[in-house]
Structures are given as structure tokens and as C-alpha cells.
């Protein structure tokens, strides 16, 4: 039930982000979701893409440092309290969120939250036990 996310190290220099999107565009890769974390010196760009193998290869060929991480995509209802219910469950079971980002599903009336957990397997187990829908990687890449 895990999904693959790629992460890219970026120096805070003009044009670096544009270089990433150019490489992905030229390789014919779609971006499904993204988040950019930044400090004064560098940033980390995290992406869910249509083809992570191909994206990683293309970026590496252009000299970027690229990592791959397992994340979990959770579907929550697009209504007040939707996210809270999920976080409440995780918190109560001692699972920490390293970071997360969200986007709204166009076709369904729901939001998708991408989670990076400290204990991914336990989180998946817990979510499944409580019937919280997880979007499998293969579905997510083609969303």
C-alpha cells in the first residue's frame, strides 16, 4: 500500500527549480503532487510523479541528487474534521508524521494526503484496521 516518492536536493540558487521541471517535462513525466521544504541554504523538493524510475534516472543524468522514499497516500473526505479524524487516530497510537502534503481529488469529493511516517508499516496496518482508504501507488501515479 506504499507509494514511491522521489526527493531532490536543491541549493537555494536562481533557476534550480525550473531546471527540475524542465528535465521532467522533456522526459514526458507528469507531476501528481509536490511539496517544497526549504531552509536558508537549501531545499528539498518531494514529488509524486507518473513514472518515478524514469524521473529519477533523468534527474540523475542532469546531476541532481535524488532520493526515493516510501510514503502513504490517504484519502480523506473533503469535509470539516476529515483530516482530524486520521491524525487523531495516528497520534493516539504513537505514530509520528515526519511531513505531509495534500491535494484535492478532482473527480471524487475527497482530498488526498501524502504522509511520510516515522513507522510506515505500522501506520498502514493501523489505517487499514480502521477502514481508512489508502490509495495504492499504481493508482496514485495515474490519478
Amino acid at each position: 500500500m506504499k507509494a514511491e516518492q522521489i526527493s531532490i536536493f536543491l541549493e537555494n540558487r536562481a533557476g534550480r527549480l525550473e531546471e527540475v521541471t524542465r528535465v521532467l517535462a522533456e522526459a514526458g513525466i507528469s507531476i501528481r503532487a509536490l511539496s517544497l521544504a526549504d531552509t536558508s541554504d537549501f531545499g528539498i523538493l518531494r514529488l509524486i510523479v507518473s513514472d518515478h524510475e524514469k524521473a529519477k534516472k533523468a534527474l540523475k543524468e542532469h546531476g541532481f541528487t535524488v532520493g526515493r522514499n516510501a510514503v502513504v497516500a490517504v484519502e480523506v473526505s473533503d469535509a470539516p474534521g476529515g483530516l482530524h479524524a486520521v491524525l487523531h487516530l495516528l497520534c493516539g497510537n504513537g505514530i509520528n508524521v515526519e511531513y505531509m502534503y495534500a491535494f484535492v481529488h478532482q473527480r471524487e469529493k475527497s482530498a488526498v494526503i501524502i504522509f511520510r511516517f516515522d513507522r510506515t508499516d505500522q501506520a498502514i496496518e493501523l489505517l487499514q484496521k480502521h477502514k481508512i482508504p489508502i490509495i495504492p501507488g499504481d493508482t496514485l501515479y495515474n490519478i
Partner: protein
Amino acid sequence: MIFDMDIETLPREDLEALQLKRLQRLCDRVYANVAFYRKAFDEAGIKPGDIQSLKDLHLLPFTEKQDLRNHYPFGLFAVPKDNVVRIHASSGTTGKASVAGYTQRDIANWATMMARSLMAAGASRRDIIHVAYGYGLFTGGLGAHYGAERLGATTIPVSGGGTRRQAMLLRDFGATVLCCTPSYALVLYEAAQEAGIDFKDLPLRLGVFGAEPWTDGMRREIESKMGIKAIDIYGLSEVMGPGVGIECVEAQNGAHLQEDHFLFEIIDPNTKEVLPPGETGELVITTLTKEAQPLIRYRTRDITRLDYTPCKCGRTTARMFRVQGRSDDMLIIRGVNVFPSQIESILLETEGCSPYYQLVVKREGNLDTLDIKVEVDEKLFSDEIKKLQILGNKIQKTIKDFLGVTAQVKLVEPRSIERSEGKAKRILDLRNA
């Protein structure tokens, strides 16, 4: 294997007798033929005949790098110009280049010392030696080349540059030994990886690396990445070129010095007093057999120590430990002496750090600042900000603990630090820029 069994295993007593005889002849030669030395001897109140034992060496005047520059280009030659068959020169990035001249016998002696060195490193006439040191005024290329031929090995004079092509030649010619600077070895390795060539699939088994300071951490990195043995070679163009000292493959613990051709001393760089064996200080070299441009007590500025205890390889010559820094390009940051090699050691011992780094020294107001740029490779990278910040803080703390200076660690993208085909640009001192 030992190339010159008789000389390299000479009992110390016999070696010292040979050194004294050669030193006395050297003093006669320079006093008679080099105006600079005649004047320096006279000013010190010394006559060549006063040198009765090796212990009298300290009576002789020093030669500084500046003396070479002052007599640019040929003012220190001890033979008529017709007897000089080759000229080399250092890069001369600061001021004039320092020039070295060689007679036919100097070239032959150098080739022999280099052949001894290659054999001590584990090479033999059966090897194919890829020489990627620059050929030209720099002594690296031709020095290694003549030694490899003297050894009887198949010599490939590739010189520096054209890195991608070099990686292919390395594969196609099946070289077993690589001679270059340690930083270029890594550049070559990267280029090979990009071209789909894995060093571990090649017959390459040995690297003879020198011409710039490196650390044991970098050695381990090279050895594990490339699957070869990495041997340190020492030399400097002022006294000859590569081959002044070489690690033996048996011990890989200190470079055996060519004591039949050179005399080595360790001095305190401040007081200029000779230090007892085993102490750390500046290496001083006297060329015993050099004909074209002999030097008396040349101050190398290299900080190291010597070990006279017997080595398991059977050689009786003294061993010189890794150059810890230079008494001149030592950085003084807020009053603290910092050798770039110390910082390199810390970086390499920190989990996952790549050997690509650069020290940037600036002055903000009246305060010196030190930035350390470290390239983030895949081993080091994390998708979590805090893990990268913890790494930076850890490096910063270790440097503070060991060296007493506060440095800002800046993580940068791979390949963003300037690569050179030859020497790595490790220091950027912008204080007087």
C-alpha cells in the same frame, strides 16, 4: 619486490657513510660553482671542509623557495648550461615560477628512483601503467613516465584532461596501474561510472597517487570505490619530482625516502632548530647527487615526521608520514592555525561525507569566517530537512571540538564545487580579495 636491493637495504651505518661522502662533495661543488651558495657559506662563516660528519649539516645555510624565485630562471645552476638536458618548473601561481634543471645523470637517477618507487608500490615490468599526471613543465607526467619505462613496464602516456576518453583507454588498454593525483582519480572514477565503466570490472589493481596532500580517509574511499590498492608517493619539483618518497605495499605506513640521493631533516619552522627523530615539524631536504641544480637544506614547508624504525618490507630507509599540512598555506582563522587536511579528515570520518569539499575564508568586518561547502551525494541525502541539518551541525561541532574554530557548514549540490583536471581547489581565501 625491491628494485635496488643493495642500496635500499643498506645498513644505516653504510648508508650514512655514503651520505657523508656525497654531502662533502656537494659542498665542494656548490661552493665552487654557485655564487648564491658561496656567498651564503661565507656569510655563515663555513667552508666546505668544515663538514666532517653528518651532524655538521645544521651549520649549513637554508635555501628558501624565495631564493629559487630570486634567481629565476637559471641562477642556481651548478653546471654549464650545455650540460642541462631538461627544464621543469612549478606552476608559479603566486609570483614567479620556480625552475629546476636536470643533467643527463639527474634524469637517469630520477628514473631509477621512480622505478624503485613503482616497484615498492607493488608494480613490476609485467604491468601496464596509465600515467595521467600532466606532461609538461610539471614534473608528474614525465617523472612517472621515465620511471615506468625504467622499470620495464608498458607505459601509457595519457597526461591530464580528456577525462571521458581516459576512462575508455583505461578499459581498452587494460591498464593495471594508474598514476595521477588522488583527486583526479576520483574525477576519472566518476567519468567512468557515467560512461558505464565500473573500475571493479577492470584489470586495474593499483594506484600511485601524489602531488597533493590527501588523507587516509580519502585512501579508504578510493580503495573501496575502485577496488584497488592506493599508494602514496611524495615528491617536489624543486629537488626532483615524484619519487622522493614512496609507501611500500607491504606496510602502507609511511613513505620510504631515497636517502642515498637526499638528506632529510625535520626542523621547527619558527625557530629553525633541528628536531629529534620522530618529532613533527617541517621537512628540509638536501640533494646529495643532483648535478644541474643542487639545493642545500631546502625548506619544503611540508609538515610531517620521520620514522627510522625498521620496516617489514626489508628496506632500511627512513619513512615519512603523510604531510599534515604546509607551514605556509596554513590558514589562520581568528588566531587559530588550521590545516585544510585536518578538516578533510573530519569530513571523511563523518558518516557519508563525499570527498568533495571547499573551504571558503572571508572577512566580515574584522572577523574571519570559515564556510565549509560539502557536496550532498546520495549517501548523504535525506528527504527530511532535520536529518540534513543534524549532519551539518555534527560536522560543525566536531570541527569546533578538534580545531577550536567555528565553521558554517553549507550543503551544496553535487558537482557544484569546481573540479580540476589535476589538483583540487580546496581553499578559497577571499580575505585579501
